[in-house]
């Protein structure tokens, strides 16, 4: 009760402070020798109020205050404390409050951490960021107030969807949001810098930090979501080209491209238009992600409850922001880097530019695949979905030159370059092809395309591996990230090519046997926990080498809400994952059993961690 009141009025106060900041900014802007201390303290105050509001919501969840509608809809007294807290952002209202929290946090950090930049630039960044913040305040208060009051107070809540009761998904939204919302600060400062015409190498050095932070969090956020989908959804895959996954991949692609562009801007002060456009695109895509996920337009396996009015609000807001940024881009931006565009065809600039085009291509494929069904539904009310084959067919062939470019590009010099050490470049190519062929020679399906793919990934792998040991000029962060990427592609390829799967229906005591695997369904146990009952099935699975493993996947029936979920049992080893999941079809004796052997699963996760580690290294280098 009291928490809801405090939380709600803190939000209102935060909004008022946001509006007053416009006034202070205006005053300070015309007389801008130093940054008005009021601006800094008011920004802090705004952050403070949003934090208070957020804490109030968490406390409402912790004490199970069911007079609060959000708590009532998403919590339950029997839920473990950890999931009561994580339930705060496991729902629409709470997750938007988290958005707001991150928005205000970033602008505050930005004002504090930014030194050696013009005061006018800081103020203008603040103004643009406040436009976004105020938009979100209004959105939150008007359409999705987390502190709605219900009377009479219910005695028990409706509970949190059990598949969200999971450690990975508890930290997935905050991490992902730090990435998503981090792009807002890039957006604001790019608009400010464009307006003031101060886009230069020193600005690039300054903004690169923010891009890196946002990129690292986004990468890790996507990874967490992917790991969660792998073990919780029970399909044994890690990426389904599902619309909700795609909307997180699109900002990542744009942000990665931006990261490469900013390198050029930092060193050669060219590609400014690219940097501006990409910054705007990244943030727009993040907003679109929120819009698409929250509006209910997307038909996705990840869809949760939603509301059209909210979608409309975000859509209008999004249009205003895009309109504003396009206006600024065309009125203020003068492309004055014509002379620096005269670089030789074989140079680092060209390779980064080509990388950009590839990334833009991948981005448009994902965008079209995600948006086309919505578009068709609106114009012809025909329901379609675009499946993984679409993405595979359009992305995989282009991955081959992309991987080669990733291997050779970083070796080139700025402006004009020659390929040195041709011998090892070519010898590595031959080794890669031979190795790929050797691995796949007993494999009769699609041998050509797979050999080429694996060769190109191996090529990148060897080249980056070699660079760790011998290099004239060190760029260790790039090296780690590219090495991680080659490892990722290799793991994904091997994972796909050599995975095996058995799906069967078994009764207790029955045995399934084929040439390679023997599955014995030994017994069933029951377990009672505070918030769910579980059926534990015990399996013993042996392969043709005589190795035997024991598995006990669970089928949990949660009490509030009453939902059954399957908990997979996964045996992870360095080289492969064994994954088993069961399900009970209603009122039948048969258990639906799915057993998968997934090679290199661990390496997919590790390589993504390695990629983001590259980003962290780069960030630390800049600091020192």
């Amino acid at each position, binding site marked *: 009760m009291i928490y809801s009141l405090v939380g709600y009025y803190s939000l209102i106060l935060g909004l008022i402070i946001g509006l007053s900041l416009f006034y202070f900014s205006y005053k300070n802007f015309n007389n801008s020798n130093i940054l008005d201390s009021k601006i800094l303290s008011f920004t802090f105050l705004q952050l403070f109020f949003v934090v208070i509001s957020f804490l109030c919501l968490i406390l409402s969840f912790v004490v199970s205050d069911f007079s609060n509608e959000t708590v009532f809809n998403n919590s339950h007294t029997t839920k473990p404390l950890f999931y009561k807290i994580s339930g705060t952002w496991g729902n629409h209202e709470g997750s938007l409050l988290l958005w707001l929290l991150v928005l205000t946090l970033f602008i505050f950090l930005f004002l504090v951490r930014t030194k050696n930049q013009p005061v006018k630039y800081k103020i203008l960044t603040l103004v643009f960021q406040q436009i976004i913040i105020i938009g979100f305040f209004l959105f939150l208060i008007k359409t999705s107030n987390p502190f709605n009051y219900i009377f009479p107070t219910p005695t028990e809540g409706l509970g949190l969807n059990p598949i969200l009761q999971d450690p990975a998904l508890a930290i997935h939204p905050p991490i992902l949001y730090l990435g998503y919302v981090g792009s807002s600060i890039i957006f604001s400062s790019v608009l400010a810098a464009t307006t003031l015409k101060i886009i230069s190498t020193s600005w690039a050095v300054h903004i690169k930090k923010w891009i890196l932070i946002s990129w690292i969090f986004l990468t890790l956020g996507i990874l967490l979501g992917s790991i969660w989908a792998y073990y919780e959804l029970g399909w044994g895959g890690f990426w389904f080209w599902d619309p909700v996954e795609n909307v997180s991949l699109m900002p990542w692609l744009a942000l990665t491209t931006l990261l490469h562009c900013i390198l050029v801007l930092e060193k050669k002060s060219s590609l400014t238009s690219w940097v501006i456009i990409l910054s705007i695109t990244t943030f727009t895509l993040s907003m679109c992600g929120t819009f698409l996920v929250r509006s209910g337009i997307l038909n996705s396996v990840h869809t949760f409850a939603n509301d059209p009015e909210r979608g409309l609000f975000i859509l209008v807001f999004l249009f205003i922001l895009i309109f504003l940024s396009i206006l600024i881009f065309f009125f203020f931006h003068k492309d004055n880097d014509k002379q620096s565009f005269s670089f030789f065809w074989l140079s680092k600039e060209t390779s980064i530019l080509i990388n950009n085009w590839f990334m833009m291509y991948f981005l448009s494929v994902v965008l*079209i695949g995600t948006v086309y069904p919505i578009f068709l539904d609106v114009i012809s009310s025909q329901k379609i979905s675009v499946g993984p084959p679409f993405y595979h067919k359009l992305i995989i062939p282009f991955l081959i030159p992309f991987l080669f470019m990733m291997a050779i590009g970083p070796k080139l010099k700025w402006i004009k370059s020659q390929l040195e050490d041709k011998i090892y470049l070519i010898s590595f190519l031959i080794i890669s092809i031979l190795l790929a062929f050797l691995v796949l020679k007993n494999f009769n399906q699609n041998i050509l395309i797979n050999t080429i793919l694996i060769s190109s990934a191996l090529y990148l792998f060897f080249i980056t591996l070699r660079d760790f040991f011998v290099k004239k000029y060190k760029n260790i962060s790039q090296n780690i990230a590219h090495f991680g990427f080659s490892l990722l592609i290799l793991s994904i390829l091997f994972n796909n090519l050599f995975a095996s799967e058995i799906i069967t229906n078994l009764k207790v005591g029955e045995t399934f046997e084929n040439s390679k695997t023997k599955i014995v369904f030994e017994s069933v146990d029951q377990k009672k926990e505070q918030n769910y009952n579980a059926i534990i099935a015990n399996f013993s699975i042996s392969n043709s080498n005589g190795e035997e493993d024991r598995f006990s996947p669970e089928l949990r029936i949660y009490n509030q809400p009453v939902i059954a979920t399957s908990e997979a049992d996964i045996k992870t080893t360095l080289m492969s994952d064994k994954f088993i*999941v069961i399900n009970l079809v*209603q009122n039948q004796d048969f258990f639906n059993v799915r057993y998968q052997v997934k090679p290199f699963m661990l390496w997919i996760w590790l390589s993504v961690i390695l990629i983001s580690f590259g980003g962290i290294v780069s960030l630390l280098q800049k600091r020192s």
Partner: protein
Amino acid sequence: MYGRKVKLRFLLVLIILITLILTTILILKSLEENVIYFQSPSEIKLLTEIDESKIRVGGMVKKNSISINSNEVSFVITDFKNEINVTYSGAVPNLFAEGKGVVAEGFLKDRNFFSAIKILAKHDENYMPPEVKEALGEK
């Protein structure tokens, strides 16, 4: 007549233009080949010919229609006007139950038999795929 630079730039623009057009064609073509249409049992009944491409069928799982043996699950999808028999031999999602909404992906054998290769899982017990809602709403 024209300088080397102008020619080079012209060539560059031309290459970019051609690449753009080619990729657009490529994307549109694969889109055409890879989309999966959604149909309700009633729409399937009205089909004049059985297409070989993959489709999705959605509706409710009919009460008392699920039967299971060691390698197959079979059930009936209904939109309360028409029905279709579905056989499926893969993993079944948690929220698959009689009287609940379902979307099955697979191939039509004829107007009454559908062979599913995937049954789509949904996260939320109250959630109904928009297609199913619409298919049921038409009754």
